[in-house]
């Protein structure tokens, strides 16, 4: 599946926040063999210049970057942030977040659709952080989005795929749209499950960054994503309610 005409080298998208150190972040990105890394923008102080060191690091990592609009609660903030990100990171890709609720960090889907339309018309390639709602998904596509990023569970919660039925329905409804589970994945089995559902990618941050050994966890996610993708392509069996013997009954000796 192409993301705005571009193939990803890996379906694992990795966030860059919350790592114990820049060195550990770098080793996690390498172990994950991430296809994309997400980045952000924050205020730069004249004295510290923290952003300049981070910019050098991401240049060294040499992985495509997807800037986000994290923390934006209004359309205006998100649109302005996207413009600043496009200039700083030299990419028209934007992971669009318009947050609607501070406790759950769930997207304000009304503002999201509006911001997605404004940015798409302005030449941005929008990756909208959304819910699994089919109608919202339709509106986002009509607004110009060519990728959808439904949440698995609230950001940073690690609760996995909260609504497997909804995510499966989204996949079935939009077979040709690149779909990414963004947010809520806690352990590699969650990522494998998303890939088994036929999702095209997963975006992980906290689950890797907050693990005891982020680099090892990054490797675990790489393997899980690879396994889940292969499983989907291999066409899994249907689950059933009753047992069915796997060993043939024919030829069984009569020993009773």
């Amino acid at each position, binding site marked *: 599946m192409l993301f705005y005409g571009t193939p990803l080298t890996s379906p694992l998208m990795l966030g860059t926040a919350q790592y114990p150190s820049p060195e550990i972040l770098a080793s996690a990105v390498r172990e994950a063999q991430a296809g994309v890394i997400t980045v*952000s923008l924050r205020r730069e102080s004249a004295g510290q210049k923290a952003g300049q060191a981070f910019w050098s690091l991401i240049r060294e990592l040499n992985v495509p970057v997807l800037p986000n609009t994290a923390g934006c609660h209004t359309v205006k903030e998100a649109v302005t942030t996207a413009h600043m990100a496009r200039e700083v990171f030299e990419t028209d890709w934007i992971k669009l977040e318009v947050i609607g609720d501070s406790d759950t960090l769930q997207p304000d889907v009304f503002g999201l659709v509006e911001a997605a339309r404004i940015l798409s018309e302005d030449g941005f390639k929008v990756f909208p952080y959304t819910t699994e709602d089919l109608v919202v998904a339709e509106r986002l596509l009509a607004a110009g989005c060519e990728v959808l990023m439904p949440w698995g569970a609230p950001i940073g919660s690690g609760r996995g795929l909260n609504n497997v039925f909804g995510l499966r329905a989204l996949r079935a409804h939009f077979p040709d749209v690149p779909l990414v589970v963004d947010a809520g994945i806690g352990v590699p089995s969650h990522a494998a499950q998303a890939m088994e559902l036929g999702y095209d990618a997963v975006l992980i941050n906290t689950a890797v960054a907050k693990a005891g050994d982020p680099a090892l966890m990054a490797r675990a996610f790489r393997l899980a994503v690879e396994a889940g993708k292969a499983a989907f392509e291999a066409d899994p069996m249907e689950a059933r309610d009753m047992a069915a013997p796997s060993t043939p009954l024919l030829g069984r000796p009569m020993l009773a």
Partner: protein
Amino acid sequence: MNIVVNDEPKVVAARTLATLIGELGLADARIATAVDGAFVPASGRENLALTDGMKIEIVAPRQGG
């Protein structure tokens, strides 16, 4: 000139956004700017005249999820 940079009140000599960036030692830094909530591209900083009370945001790359 009294302006606000990243939420901090400042008294500056600069008359344009471009000279302000220089005054702050950020001329060669990878940054983006907004004035009163609107994006100002790098190419527009030279012609953006500062006025009293302007709210300037200066951002740079940072870790994100």
